């Protein structure tokens, strides 16, 4: 299904007002510049003209309100939107291993339910592998450079350290892919991207087809001449950049601490196992003390098991999410840089145009106006996405850290239960012995 996809998306004209999520998305526009389109719009992700400042703030307010509701209501499905608004639901599940002569890999089932007209059918079910998700992300970055694209779980895993086909690893990766896709589907602009549509619907994802779908936006942003220097970056974007730098640093520190803890815990575990072994070996030379010694050895073993689980969970659930965010920050910084370039270009052209105008009284060229539009739309998109990102980030880290606390609590609870039952056992035996002695 190669040419079918663009066809579905070209119906950009008549869109009922209810299907427009918020002014900024202006859903009819993103695809008007794609295949076959003779519309030579400046190719922004939305066609809305300049006055984007208020939509940006309403949209961001809107987003924040939505997500705050979610945080209280449904912890398990953080992206559960209020159902009246959502018309696109995606899920990633059912991992399966494929073995071929060349390679072994995992595919996941991607299920879609939608009422959007851009989709031919209301339901889809396809199988995709990590590579496909990677492809999608690259395409989204290229075609929507003014937006923040969510991160994917790490591509490479050190062989020998983590088993790529172990149940836990696959499970973790799948959850991350599911989160990625849901974030994209949730996004007012990205969710209408043709590449996403292809990803969700195509029986065989022909990745070369991507070239044809590349939007003019991507091209124009990419081909910004590098020669322009930025005059004055607006304060809010400076603040974003600084925040990202500091946050990046902190995430790095947390990653290091978590790894250090894992190392210390692993060494503790080694010693603890040996320690339990000494109790077991002592049993041989005792008779009355047999039971308590065996009991202690048993409790130590149980504690070891709990610690092992804790370590595995931290490796599989905690560290990958941290690293995802580091990648996320990098991609956001890139977007900031592109925004700067956009602004620089505009300023450069403007300056040139002003000089020329002064010389020969020609009117302000259209390109300069288009540049201005571009910058202002970029700024608006970015601000809206930033707010959305901040909100998601807050939720994600709340979940991450709470999960870490829960896992530690579980580990202690397991250990406590074992020791308490040993105490009961030994004290009951003591009472038994004493009563039988006096009888």
């Amino acid at each position, binding site marked *: 299904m190669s040419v079918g996809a663009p066809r579905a998306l070209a119906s950009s004209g008549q869109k009922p007002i209810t299907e427009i999520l918020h002014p900024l998305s202006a859903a009819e526009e993103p695809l008007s510049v794609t295949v076959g389109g003779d519309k030579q719009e400046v190719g922004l992700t939305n066609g809305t003209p300049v006055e984007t400042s208020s939509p940006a703030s309403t949209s961001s307010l809107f987003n924040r309100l939505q997500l705050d509701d979610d945080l209280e209501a449904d912890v398990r499905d953080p992206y559960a939107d209020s159902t009246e608004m959502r018309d696109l639901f995606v899920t990633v599940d059912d991992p399966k291993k494929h073995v071929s002569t060349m390679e072994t890999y995992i595919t996941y089932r991607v299920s879609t339910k939608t009422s959007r007209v851009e989709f031919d059918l209301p339901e889809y079910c396809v199988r995709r592998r990590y590579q496909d998700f990677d492809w999608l992300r690259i395409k989204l970055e290229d075609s929507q450079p003014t937006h923040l694209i969510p991160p994917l779980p790490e591509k490479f895993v050190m062989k020998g350290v983590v088993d790529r086909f172990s149940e836990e690893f696959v499970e973790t990766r799948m959850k991350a892919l599911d989160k990625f896709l849901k974030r994209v589907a949730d996004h007012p602009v990205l969710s209408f991207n043709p590449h996403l549509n292809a990803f969700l619907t195509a029986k065989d994802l022909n990745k070369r087809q991507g070239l044809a779908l590349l939007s003019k936006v991507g091209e124009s942003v990419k081909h910004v001449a590098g020669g322009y220097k930025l005059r004055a970056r607006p304060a809010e974007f400076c603040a974003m950049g600084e925040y990202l730098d500091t946050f990046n640093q*902190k995430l790095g520190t947390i990653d290091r*601490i978590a790894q*250090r*803890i894992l190392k*210390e815990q692993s060494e503790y575990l080694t*010693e603890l196992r040996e320690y339990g072994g000494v109790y077991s070996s002592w049993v041989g030379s005792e008779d009355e003390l047999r039971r308590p*010694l065996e009991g202690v050895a048993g409790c130590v073993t149980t504690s070891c098991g709990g610690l092992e689980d804790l370590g595995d969970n931290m490796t599989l659930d905690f560290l990958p999410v941290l690293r995802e965010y580091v990648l996320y920050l990098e991609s956001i910084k890139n977007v900031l840089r592109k925004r700067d370039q956009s602004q620089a270009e505009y300023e450069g052209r403007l300056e040139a145009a002003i000089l020329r105008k002064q010389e020969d009284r020609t009117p302000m060229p259209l390109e300069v106006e288009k540049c201005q539009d571009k910058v202002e739309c970029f700024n608006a998109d970015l601000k809206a996405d930033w707010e959305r990102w901040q909100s998601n980030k807050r939720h994600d880290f709340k979940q991450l850290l709470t999960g870490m606390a829960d896992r530690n609590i579980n580990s202690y609870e397991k250990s406590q239960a074992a*020791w308490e039952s040993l105490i009961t056992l030994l004290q*009951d035996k003591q009472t038994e012995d004493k009563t039988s002695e006096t009888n």
Partner: protein
Amino acid sequence: MAEDGREESVAADDDSQHTAEDGRNGLNNTMVEESPTLLRRMEICVAEAEKRSGKNAVNMQETFTVYLIETRPMDALAEGRNPAPDSLWRRYSEFELLRNYLLVTFPYIVVPPLPEKRAEFVWHKLSADNMDPDFVERRRVGLENFLLRVASHPVLSNDKILHHFLTEEHGWKEVVYETGFQAKADSRLKALSATFRVRNPDKRFMDMKHYSDELQSHTSQLLRARARVADRLYGVYKVHGNYGRVFSEWSAIEREMGDGLQSAGHHMDAYAASIDDILEEEEHYADQLKEYLFYAEALRAVCRKHELTQFELEMATQDLISKKQQHEELSTGIVRTFSFKGMTNKLFGQEAPEQREARLKLLEELIEEGEEAVKDKTVECEEHVEKAWVDMQRFKEQKDKDLREALINYAVMQVSMCKKGIQMWSNAKECFLKM
């Protein structure tokens, strides 16, 4: 029986109420109630420790610690009076002297050990310094424990020197030396030689000796492993303190998340700090294990004494037999065994009858002495076996009870540690939820 009453009440205690402290007090109570001994008549405790300076034997300045021993008559307490305790100061070396005296004087008793002279099996935080206040405190407890054990022992508690030790500060050392116990001490060489050369030691004692090796091996292995575990656990907890710092730094750049992160950071700091008390508490468990590590040595000493007495008996018997044989040969002229005298007689002719008579007479005297010696040694050996066996049984029962109690206390400590951990992380979780 009072003993039963006390133990039933311990057993009925709710898990959450049974603390390690209860375990230790329980042990002390048992000793008081079970003993028809000194301890019944006198309350003993090692109340304090103090630093002193003075000149030592080679006239050099040194600092040492002295311990205050307080005693009060039990009957006064029972009558409800509360007299001031008698007290005196003793240093560690005096305790050692007392114990050495007991070891020599009662070689059939498994003599309670002293707390260790130097801190061993330390994990990195504890200094191995004898002047370290924690070490001194634990030593004070150990010395008190030693005195209570000795004073509640059915045999040891009656000793006059012990009584003197507890009541007369000055001149005690002279009195001990006057007993001449040092002369009675068996040389190590003698004891070692007996171990190798004894032919028929009592099997029960050999088994007990083997058991003492096992006990020593396992307790020392356990102490070493525990120290390593403590070291690692310390590391795990302390690294979590780093979360405290980074959360604090991170909270500075956050709007809504800031407060939650900041408070969570404080809880992480508290978590990291909590390990100090946990490990300090565990030292008591280690001390209980150490006591039995040293007890194993005392048990082995009793077994070795048996080997020695048995060996001496065998030697005396052997000596008597050989003398009787010589006598027989001399009187009958029949040489059964090779001897130089026999050889020289053959080569150079027999000796004169008067000489022969003299030698026969001498041999008869020696035989008489030898028979006395065998009788004495037999009595010594049998008495030792009888008394030692009784005390070894007593020791076994005590060991089983004490170590069982120690293991239960250890479990209680572990439960407490888990509860603290859960508390800390729950606090942090609450802060995370407020982020």
